[in-house]
């Protein structure tokens, strides 16, 4: 059996689960952000080690923290807020079992290139155990 990876066991399943959301989903920070967009990026701290036992490459286990950034176009404030609220709800509904949904940060206006985006971050966590 091939060794598991965080990509195969955590990031890819999360990206696959979010693929059903009506937005462009990225498991990395894209150069440009075609809105609406959902971007999964590592949170800080990225890994937390909260279980006992020796950590080796074959017994690696940790809590993994991610930020899911929800981005919509910022033009009309009421419409943008409604859009991002709906996007947040659809993202949270799509997050698979086994993830702690910690909090949603307040939306902020972020300039990306020439565009203004309304962005809200969802922090989620899960536990990863290496198997091989």
């Amino acid at each position, binding site marked *: 059996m091939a060794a598991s990876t965080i990509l195969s066991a955590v990031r890819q399943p999360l990206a696959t689960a979010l693929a059903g959301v009506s937005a462009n989903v990225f498991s990395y920070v894209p150069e440009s952000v075609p809105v609406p967009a959902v971007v999964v990026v590592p949170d800080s701290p990225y890994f937390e080690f909260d279980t*006992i036992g020796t950590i080796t490459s074959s017994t690696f286990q940790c809590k993994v923290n991610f930020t899911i950034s929800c981005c919509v176009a910022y033009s009309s404030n009421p419409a943008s807020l409604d859009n991002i609220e709906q996007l947040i709800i659809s993202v949270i509904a799509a997050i698979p079992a086994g993830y702690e949904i910690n909090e949603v940060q307040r939306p902020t206006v972020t300039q990306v290139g020439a565009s203004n985006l309304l962005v809200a971050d969802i922090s989620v966590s899960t536990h990863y155990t290496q198997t091989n």
Partner: protein
Amino acid sequence: MAVTVITGRDLSLTIDSKSYDPQVTSATLKTNLERNAYETIDGKVFYALDTTAELSITMLSDWGANSPTSLCEAMWTAASTAANTSLTYTFTAASGAVFTGSVYPSFPDAGGTGKDAQTVSFTLQGTAKPTLTIS
């Protein structure tokens, strides 16, 4: 010479020959020596009566888990079907300091808060004083 610090990563726990390190967040083996105190005309004296032990575990709840083996389900099954049958354990405090003994199973709690990962804490009563092997 610098002090060698040992951490939670040095700990290791097996119960009934199965390792539960991946889901255990805290494990403490406590051995109690019960003494009676007597006030004599020469002053207070103590007399050791009995030794008890208990293994306290806090862990990520693993109901329904297959890999690694579910400790919650193993404890529940053992407590349901063979409550008076002890289970052997090996508790490594650090390399070269290994405690062994037996504990009786107990029923783990189930549940948690909406926000966080489900966790459970329970204490297993030891059958006797653990045996410490120093190597």
